[in-house]
C-alpha cells in the first residue's frame, strides 16, 4: 500500500461501509485509516451522511394535505 492512498480510499468507501470489500481490501483500508486521520474522518462523515440527510428531511404529511388529496380523488372519480 502506498502512503498516498486517499483517492483510492474514497473510491472504495461505499463498498467499505456496506461490508462488500474483499477481506484483503478491507485490511488495506483499515491499515490506511490507522495512519491517515483525514481519511478516517472522511469515512466517518461519509458513513453518517445518509442518516443525517434521512433524519433532516423526515416529514409528516399535514392533515390538510390528506384532506385535499381525498377531495381531489373524489372529484376526479366522479368525472370518470
Amino acid at each position, binding site marked *: 500500500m502506498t502512503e498516498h492512498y486517499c483517492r483510492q480510499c474514497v473510491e472504495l*468507501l461505499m463498498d467499505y461501509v456496506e461490508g462488500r470489500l474483499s477481506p484483503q481490501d478491507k485490511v488495506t483500508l483499515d491499515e490506511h485509516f490507522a495512519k491517515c486521520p*483525514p481519511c478516517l474522518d472522511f469515512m466517518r462523515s461519509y458513513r453518517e451522511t*445518509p442518516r443525517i*440527510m434521512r433524519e433532516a428531511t423526515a416529514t409528516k404529511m399535514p392533515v390538510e394535505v390528506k384532506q385535499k388529496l381525498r377531495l381531489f380523488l373524489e372529484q376526479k372519480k366522479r368525472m370518470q
Partner: protein
Amino acid sequence: MTTTAEPPVNGKSDLALIARVRAGDEDAFDALVERYQDKVYGLALRLSGNSSDAEEILQDTFLQVYRKLDQFREEARFSTWLYRVATNTALMHGRSKRRHQAEPLDDYLPKFDETGTFASSADFGRAARADELLERKQLAQKALEAVDRLSDLYRAVFVLRDIEDLSTEETAEILGLDPGVVRTRLHRARLMLRGYLGNLVGGES
C-alpha cells in the same frame, strides 16, 4: 339477518385490495391511498424540494394509480410500481417547472493533489456531526435544498436508496437502471452531500 360481508379492507394485502378495486370496490382504493399516502408525500417532498410541488405530485400520482391500475402486473410488488409512478411524476413535474437552475453540488466533491492525497487538510469529521452542530430547523431546510441541488441523475437514486431505504435492486427497477449504475451514482451523490454538510458546519471549504 346474516350477511357474508367481506372483512375490513385495512387488514388486507396490497394484492387483495387491488383485486377488490378491480371489482369496483372504491373503499379498497381508499385503503391503498391511506396505506401509502405518507410514503408518497415524503418521496414527493424530497424529490421536489418544496411542499406545494409535493402536494401536486401526490395528487397526480394517486390519480394515475387509479386510472392505470389495470397496467399493474402482479409479478412486481405494488409498492415498487407505485414508487415508479410517483418518481416519474416528480421528475416530469420538475422538468416542466424548469427546476435546478441553482448551482449544482459538484464543487463539494473531494479534491486531491497530484499524489492522490487530499488537497486540503480540512476537518472532515465535522460533517459527521452536522446534526449536532446545526439547529434542527436550519439543517432540515438546508438538507432539502441540498437534495434539490442534485441533478436528476443523482437525486432520485439518493432519495430512493438512502432516504426511502429501498434496496439497490428495487431502486434500479424503479428507475430502469442497471444496479451498477445505481451504486455509482449513489456513491457520487453521497460524496457531494457529505461535502455540502461539511461546508455547512464550517469544516471544509
